[in-house]
């Protein structure tokens, strides 16, 4: 029940907010609507924390599973559950939504009830994506999520919002409809083998496909996810969407939506099609590395703060895909960790940029300068968030990037060397931006800049606190995800003994001495497992 509750609560809150808003524009009802929306999102956050508390970190399987027939004729079920990979992403969603709502306290006054409705609706769909085990259910949430985001960008965005909104929805939809065809194809392939179609992810794991079909299906899934990530060269919708979206939209977009792409790769594309995944992994990794370097270089020359952060996301998510492509414990754990860390630090950056833009109504770096003397507390917070995005040791970004690079190095040193330049480049563009905005002489227009308001404290303090916590106590976050990560890796690598050597787990932060969960796997050079024999046929 807990998971359904977490998915349904935001929907209830959304409808309540819409009803409480009354007919037409009612500024007098605004506080009530905001209170309902924020209250709902905080309750959802509390519920996600409760979920984490009750989650058994030692298990690799889905927990809190609910399963009901939905369309029995096609084996479609309402089937939800969480494992270590989705758990923290759900918590992240619960964490960022109240921040997004708080950040728009001052900047959004146009139809607050509709705004709250769409933000909460988006939250429900995002959590739905993370908890779905049934592929059909997953696709429903995946596609439904586009609508609220489209409205958030299109109604509350900046100047070119309509263009950005339409581009966002068409671009992402074009990718995902091909995945729909592949999902249908999978269900029918399952029917051919077993007599009845199913969309159950766990059942589909047991399906063997012809090599050709597996490749096509993998490509269809991966295209959908690569557009969402966004992986170079499918990233062109992202800068537009980010720049034009309102702060709340950008925070959610960067914080959660992009993770759905990498989550989808890890949850669906790789485990469902392990053979194709291993043959295409080098291509994905190559594109990821191109994205890391390209995103960083393009970010460097952006005159617009939001665009800079947007391109930095391309670069950071390149690391995630690189870690996933390596498919060893460090790489994948690092990738999941980086998803969370990026959600916090980029979410924080967009919140900061939103505050600047609220004050000055511009996002151009050249318009700022010397803020340090005017708003020192704001700049201090800005610095911490910037450093967490650069991946300074002791802050959240470092753990993920380090693990990814360790994992990737064991898989492909050459690519990793190139990827590592992204770490340096990120320091270059972020610090250069920070310097231009905050140091130097104070310009006339910035002289009256306000420092942080209590509401902004409430937004930034949790963000920075989490960033530090994730930096100094990574075990807290790595522990619950590890069994599930190992399970996925086993599933993907089951058919390739050549890479088994990469999988002896030596996660760098664990000294707990727990039994290694990977014992008993075939060593390199041994004959292929049963799984791969089926595959060859």
């Amino acid at each position, binding site marked *: 029940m807990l998971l359904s509750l977490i998915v349904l609560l935001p929907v209830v809150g959304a409808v309540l907010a819409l009803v409480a808003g009354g007919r037409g524009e009612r500024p007098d009802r605004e506080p009530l609507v905001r209170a309902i929306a924020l209250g709902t999102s905080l309750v959802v956050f509390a519920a996600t924390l409760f979920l984490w508390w009750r989650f058994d970190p030692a298990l690799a399987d889905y927990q809190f599973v609910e399963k009901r027939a939905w*369309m029995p004729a096609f084996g479609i079920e309402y089937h939800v559950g969480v494992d270590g990979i989705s758990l923290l992403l759900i918590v992240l969603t619960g964490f960022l939504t109240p921040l997004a709502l708080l950040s728009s306290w001052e900047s959004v006054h146009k139809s607050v009830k509709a705004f709250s409705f769409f933000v909460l609706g988006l939250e429900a769909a995002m959590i739905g994506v993370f908890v779905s085990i049934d592929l059909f259910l997953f696709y429903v949430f995946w*596609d439904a999520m586009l609508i609220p985001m489209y*409205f958030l960008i*299109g*109604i509350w965005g900046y100047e070119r919002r309509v263009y950005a909104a339409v581009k966002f929805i068409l671009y992402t939809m074009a990718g995902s*409809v*091909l995945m*729909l065809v592949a999902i*249908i194809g999978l269900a029918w392939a399952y029917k051919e083998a077993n007599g009845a179609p199913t969309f159950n992810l766990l059942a589909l794991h047991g399906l063997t496909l012809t090599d050709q079909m597996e490749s096509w299906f993998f490509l269809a899934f991966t295209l959908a996810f690569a557009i969402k990530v966004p992986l170079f060269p499918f990233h062109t919708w992202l800068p537009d969407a980010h720049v034009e979206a309102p702060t709340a939209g950008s925070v959610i977009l960067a914080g959660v939506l992009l993770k759905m792409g990498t989550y989808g790769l890890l949850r669906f594309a790789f485990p469902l099609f392990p053979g194709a995944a291993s043959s295409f992994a080098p291509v994905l990794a190559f594109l990821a590395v191109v994205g890391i370097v390209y995103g960083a270089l393009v970010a460097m020359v952006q005159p617009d703060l939001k665009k800079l952060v947007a391109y930095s996301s391309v670069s950071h998510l390149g690391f995630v895909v690189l870690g996933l492509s390596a498919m060893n414990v460090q790489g994948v754990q690092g990738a999941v960790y980086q998803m969370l860390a990026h959600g916090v630090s980029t979410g924080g950056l967009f919140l900061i940029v939103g505050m600047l833009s609220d004050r000055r109504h511009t996002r151009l770096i050249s318009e700022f300068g010397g803020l340090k003397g005017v708003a020192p507390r704001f700049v201090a917070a800005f610095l911490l968030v910037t450093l967490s995005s650069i991946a300074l040791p002791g802050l959240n970004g470092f753990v993920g990037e380090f693990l990814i690079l360790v994992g990737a190095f064991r898989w492909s040193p050459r690519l990793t060397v190139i990827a590592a330049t992204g770490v340096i480049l990120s320091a270059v563009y972020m610090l250069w931006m920070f310097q231009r905005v905050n140091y130097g002489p104070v310009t006339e227009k910035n002289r009256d800049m306000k420092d942080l308001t209590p509401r902004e404290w409430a937004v930034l303090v949790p963000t920075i606190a989490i960033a530090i916590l994730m930096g100094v106590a990574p075990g807290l976050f790595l522990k619950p995800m590890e069994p599930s990560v190992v399970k996925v890796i086993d599933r993907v690598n089951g058919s390739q003994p050549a890479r088994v050597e990469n999988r002896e787990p030596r996660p760098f932060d664990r000294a707990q001495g727990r039994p290694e969960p990977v014992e008993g796997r075939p060593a390199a050079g041994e004959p292929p497992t049963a799984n791969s024999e089926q595959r060859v046929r």
Partner: protein
Amino acid sequence: MTPYIAIIPIVAVMLSACASMIAEALRHPGERMPMAFFGLIGLVGAAVASVLMWDADAQSFGVVRSDNFALFINIVLCVVGVLTMLFSDEIVERENLPSGEYYALTLFAISGMMLMAAATDLLVIFLALEILSLSVYVLTGIRRASAAGAEAAFKYFLLGAFSSAFFLYGVAFAFAISGSTRLDEIGKALSSAGTGAPETMALLAVGLLAVGFAFKVSAVPFHMWTPDAYEGAPTIVTAFMSTGVKAAAFAAFVRVFLAPLEPLKDQWIPVLTVIAAATMILGTVVGVVQTNIKRMLAYSSIAHAGYLLLGIVATTDTGKAAVLFYLLAYAVSNLGALGIVALLGTSQHPHDELRDFAGLWRSRPGLAGLMTVFLLSLGGFPPLAGFIGKWYIFSAAVERGHYWLAIIGVLTSVVSVFFYLRIVVMMYMTEGTEIARPRVPLAAAAALALATAGVFYLGILPARIIDLARASIATIL
């Protein structure tokens, strides 16, 4: 009594049509008669009869068969009819349409559609086709003062008459090879012909019948009349014919092609595959450049005909059930969308241009919200009816390995989302000049509520309707 059971729903609707005619004759000038109410009685009666007759497989005169398939279509047509009646109540008054003729023709058209879905004889199908076509031709031109309406009706009539001739010619060839116009006899004659190359006459029959049906469902290249007829007709008539005629024509299409003509499927599947692909592509691509909502939805209806053709091309049980489900999903979504367009129009200002919708969200948030729901359903977004419909149709295509058709289908539906969103952009993201828009009467509000409930019900809890659709196709072999 027993031989008449199968036609009870048809008769119920016909009687209500006659009631409107009599009411019109007895009406004093200026007096308002609740004719929509007569229609509602007849339609609800027909729906109740259809539900009671479920699984009975009643047959009348050997040529009308109210099997579950026909009854499912009956229910779809009753939904179409009830929504049309509820919308029409106020609109007929407002637009000064001759109410007696309007209601009588609409109801006669529905009875023709029901007959078309239940007929098991090519000649009866032709008869039903003519009943519905003649009614709809007149309805298209019912605004006698409107030049556009007259042009639309004339075009529709000429091309429709032409297609009827094709159809009749096809019936003649079918009769020539089998000695009967009954579908089961034709099926027997064709399947006993052996596996060798089919006779030329059989191919001619299939080809000519396909042309006749393709006209009625507005498949490319026989779609030319659609945009003009849809644009010229009063909006409420557009709403009615885009959903009702499509449902009836597809019902007969499935009944003829997937039962008696199935032995020749190796010949007609390639042709219909090309037609389906061309219909989906043309409907969406040309839809993108339209600025008139009715024309835009006309092209969208062409595209939807293409999706429905996928269900026929699949030639499976999934395909047949998918067609039935899709027809219902399309009916509630499209009637809802066009109903809102009709409700916003007046006789001076039709409110059917894209720019008329600018700023609708500010002045009419409720209508704008519902319009968005219907358009998103047409575009195939979950959790709405259109999504399940499209998923079902594409499932049928993929099941038979028609991956390319499914891919064309999903990609064209992305393109179609672009033009549905153009309306949404207008409503929400464009400031508009304030124009006087009439208020929504109670009956129409009920219709909108019904359509919205349908869109969400079919989108979120479709299992029951899917089961009914699957149970409806047993008699179509």
